[in-house]
């Protein structure tokens, strides 16, 4: 009765659209867990929101309710991994920050096999507003030794990434996503940690996205092609370790690289790309957040803060005219 009431009062808590990244994650993990008995899920009273309600229903004995107590949850995951489990720590990305130090000391320091899977990252959270819109997680967790950082772009890639995440030995931080997302990633491209994928080749510029921004970059690139600008698109779903070989390869013939992320410009995808290319001649432009967000629908917020398809489109046109002038 109680849970029904909660659902009624708080419809947002239940991931309705089957195409949201959190729902795909929850479903695929549940499927994998039928065979992989080592998977154990730690939840902080938010399984309805993280997509793990699927798992909770199926595997009661491997679902650990930690309550709203993220620090204890995170540190426990470390010792559970030493007992042979593959602990999946789940809550909203913003609350992962609360347990950041636990991830540092009780997981990263001993290179333990724990998977942190964070839903509700970025402006994509929408109406809950700035307090819940985590724009700092990639920066924080990227700075931890031994951690790999993932942010798949759609449900197809999420499926592949989740399979890889579970098999990989070592700590991983992965973003899912709250909002409904279109499915466009070609599964044949596959998934491996540390590899970006070229979705479109280009000769003028490359746009690099991760998570929700990849599709926006993809759509912008198609429009730009129509007006004669050849823009390549890379889905960089591994932010760390960054795919340096691919970055080198795509930077050879283009004028500049533009990164777009639903995250702070300090320390996320853009920083990662710029650091990797810091001893090369290619120009890197970073689009992302510099301030806190606010309440609103994800698409309205993306537009307002300049990380939507149209902002990317305009940015590339600006870059085009800048480099055309330079040529003269």
């Amino acid at each position: 009765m109680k849970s029904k009431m909660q659902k009624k009062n708080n419809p947002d808590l239940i991931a309705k659209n089957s195409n949201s990244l959190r729902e795909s994650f929850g479903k695929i993990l549940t499927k994998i867990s039928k065979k992989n008995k080592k998977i154990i899920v730690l939840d902080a009273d938010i399984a309805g929101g993280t997509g793990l309600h699927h798992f909770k229903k199926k595997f009661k004995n491997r679902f650990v309710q930690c309550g709203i107590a993220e620090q204890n949850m995170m540190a426990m995951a470390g010792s559970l991994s030493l007992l042979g489990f593959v602990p999946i720590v789940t809550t909203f990305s913003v609350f992962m920050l609360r347990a950041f130090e636990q991830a540092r000391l009780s997981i990263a320091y001993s290179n333990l096999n724990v998977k942190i899977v964070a839903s509700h990252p970025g402006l994509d959270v929408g109406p809950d507003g700035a307090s819940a819109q985590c724009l700092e997680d990639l920066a924080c967790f990227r700075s931890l030794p031994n951690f790999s950082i993932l942010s798949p772009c759609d449900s197809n890639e999420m499926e592949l990434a989740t399979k890889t995440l579970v098999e990989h030995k070592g700590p991983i931080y992965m973003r899912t996503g709250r909002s409904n997302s279109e499915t466009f990633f070609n599964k044949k491209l596959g998934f491996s940690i540390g590899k970006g994928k070229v979705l479109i080749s280009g000769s003028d510029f490359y746009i690099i996205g991760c998570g929700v921004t990849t599709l926006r970059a993809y759509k912008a690139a198609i429009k730009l092609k129509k007006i004669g600008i050849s823009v390549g698109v890379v889905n960089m779903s591994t932010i760390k370790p960054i795919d340096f070989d691919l970055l080198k390869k795509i930077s050879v013939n283009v004028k500049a690289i533009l990164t777009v992320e639903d995250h702070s410009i300090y320390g996320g995808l853009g920083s990662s790309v710029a650091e990797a290319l810091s001893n090369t001649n290619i120009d890197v432009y970073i689009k992302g957040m510099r301030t806190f967000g606010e309440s609103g629908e994800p698409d309205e917020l993306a537009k307002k803060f300049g990380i939507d398809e149209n902002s990317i489109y305009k940015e590339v046109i600006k870059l085009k005219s800048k480099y055309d002038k330079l040529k003269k």
Partner: protein
Amino acid sequence: MKNFYKKTSNLRIDILDSIFLAKSGHPGGCLSCVDLIYYIFKNYLNYKKNFFRKLDRNYFVLSKGHCAPALYAVVNELGIIKKKEMLSLRKINSLAQGHTHLTQKNLWMGANTGSLGQGFSFAIGYALGLKKINSKKKVFTILGDGELQEGEIWEGAMFSSHHNLNNLCAIIDYNKLQSDEKVKNIINVEPLKQKWLSFGWKVLSIDGHNYYQIKKVIDNFFKKPQKKPTLIIANTIKGKGVKFMEKNPFWHGSVKITLEQLNKAKNEIKNAKKK
């Protein structure tokens, strides 16, 4: 019993020697919890080094990780590490880091420590994991009294009783002093017993330097089936065994011990041993 006091006197000397050589460390707290660590390790984790790789075994976490030198002294005494390794405390390239660092080669470390509260959660994870693999083995952890000011402790306390972790025993090294001052002057943690009882734990209180009392509660926890997680309030003396260190927050650390102080302290411990 006599042997126990002889051994713990030697451990006290090892602790002081290693902190002296390191030129920094936390002697006060080491001397208050070393008897407890020794009893638990000697009786319930006296494994060969490689045995620590086994999952189905007892676990120990020194959550008050600044007292790592006491743990190093104990595992040296039991032959798990070499004396050279113990005395490399806080030195470059050493196994004996300032706070415990758990690696696949040194699983006896129990947890990474140095940030209070985390070791407790780590111990809880072991206790939960053991239950999930249907093991009858048990988990010990030693907490500082000042450590109880961490919110994570109370997250873990609630979790443990809710999930009925009757295979977990937490011991509070209640020496009544923390880094700067008396615990009661910083943030009072009392009433301890009532707090833990109300969190659904079984609570016992002992003299944490008395062999018989330690033996009684630890053996009882280990050998008899428990209904709840167990908390032992071990009343201890910070700096125990060295008069000029006892009950003086200065020796919480991180402090340097001079050669003169070291000799004075060692003589006192040796003389007490003879009696």
